[in-house]
């Protein structure tokens, strides 16, 4: 479904992503793990269109989307949850969800149905629909951005560090919800530093180091690799 070949992302002279190739099949949950600064978020932001690719290609269902604008990429079916979470703090939870469905704003009944589905999946949000999103806790904001992204009925959901800075109990909840989304058939590319958690929900995983894919395999293979620590630390 999503295929990336020889992707390169640069910040000036610095090459954050160097010749990265990966693929995500329909219905799969693929984890992209690696140490801080390995280039995981850059990869994700590049797929989302927020960063320009210096080289390489990104294809969705065989169509080249490498240099498409962020708004065009959402319309093609890729929704992004950035690591900075980025709820619109002054907008209510409801308004945030409405915007999530911006690409389908003419599909009123479908939107209402998805809204119900998301509020059922994230009951904490259902209690707070008219509250400004900025007043939510970190965990609730994370739930909101995931729900918001799902409102566009994406073919692929890009999740960047959903557990970042959250209390362990909240992390459990978030991952339970990611598992629920996957069970419902969503294709997910998950970037995560919390390797154990990521591998527990993922089908396959890629390990990134210094802008490159250092290892890949099924979640079990990666999880069982004794040299995982070495891959991480570059030993």
């Amino acid at each position, binding site marked *: 479904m999503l295929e990336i070949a020889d992707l390169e992302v640069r910040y000036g002279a610095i090459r954050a992503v160097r010749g990265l190739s990966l693929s995500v099949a329909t219905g799969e949950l693929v984890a992209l793990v690696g140490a801080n600064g390995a280039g995981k978020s850059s990869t994700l932001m590049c797929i989302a269109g927020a960063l320009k690719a210096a080289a390489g290609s990104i294809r969705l269902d065989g169509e080249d989307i490498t240099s498409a604008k962020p708004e065009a990429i959402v319309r093609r079916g890729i*929704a992004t949850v*950035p690591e900075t979470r980025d709820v619109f703090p002054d*907008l209510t939870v409801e308004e945030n969800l409405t*915007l999530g469905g*911006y690409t389908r704003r003419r599909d009123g009944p479908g939107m209402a149905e998805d809204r119900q589905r998301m509020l059922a999946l994230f009951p904490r949000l259902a209690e707070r629909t008219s509250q400004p999103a900025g007043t939510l806790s970190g965990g609730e904001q994370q739930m909101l951005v995931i729900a918001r*992204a799902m409102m566009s009925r994406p073919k692929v959901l890009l999740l960047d560090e959903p557990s970042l800075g959250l209390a362990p109990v909240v992390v459990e909840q978030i991952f339970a919800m990611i598992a629920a989304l996957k069970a419902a058939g969503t294709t997910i590319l998950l970037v995560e530093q919390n390797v154990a958690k990521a591998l527990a929900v993922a089908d396959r995983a890629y390990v990134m180091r210094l802008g490159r894919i250092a290892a890949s395999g099924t979640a079990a293979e990666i999880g069982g690799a004794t040299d995982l620590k070495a891959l991480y630390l570059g030993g």
Partner: protein
Amino acid sequence: MTFAIQFVIDVLSLGGAYALMALGLVIVYGILRLVNFAYGELIMVAGYTMFLVGGSGLPWLVMAAVAVVMAVLAGIATDYVAFRPVRAKSVTAVLITSFAFSTLLQNAALLFISPRPQTVPLPALFSKTVTIGGAVTPLRNIITIVAAVVLLGLFALLMRRTVLGIAMRAAATNFTMARMLGVPANLIITSAFAISGFLAGVVGLLWIGRIGTVVPGIGLEPLLVAFIATVIGGMRSLSGAVIGGFLLALIDTSLNYTLPQDLLKFRDAFTFSLVILILLWRPEGLVKGPASGQRT
């Protein structure tokens, strides 16, 4: 009592006009983080359109509608001519292009029309006066208040109840994230300029209605007023712009009422001194805008 009523009407009508001016400026600033220095010329465009269609014999409301439409088109043209080509470059570039567009429009008016004031058709209603609670006031002032209330109401409705409005508020906080949800950047920016032009057009009619003539430099004072009102209000907040507009009108009107005749011509100096005091007290403006956002 009469005096109080008079005062309140003066503050509200001036404040209404100021608030609309400020709103027209801040709607673009909020999204682009750029001041549109050609904003005053949108008011000028509305004025000259009135002058040009003045001899046509059309009903006044039709002429007014044409003038507002022209202001909207001029607003959209500002985006296409001054902003879009250099938006991604630098703040300085846009600053210069918006100044250039402003100068271009002013000089076009000087060259093709006249440097002298031109009479603009006004409805008979504008020159009538009404007596409210003993206070005699031009009907124009009441019209301004009503227009301001209606437009502010419509504006609030647009921003809160429509997807476009919600998207514009979102884009004002975090443009990149809004785009990652599928909100097209160009649509939002052009809409902001169109709304800005619409507000400038209506304000232009009311503003020019006070004096009855239009000159090429007519836009300077509204631009200044709008700028100061938004600075007082907090630069980033829509409600702040409205509050700033009314506060500035309150200051201006109070000074008009209290300053002795000799000092009245220095009124702006007093106004700006008070503005400085307000800014020393609240450097961020009265209303805190949406949390930080980056320029696009």
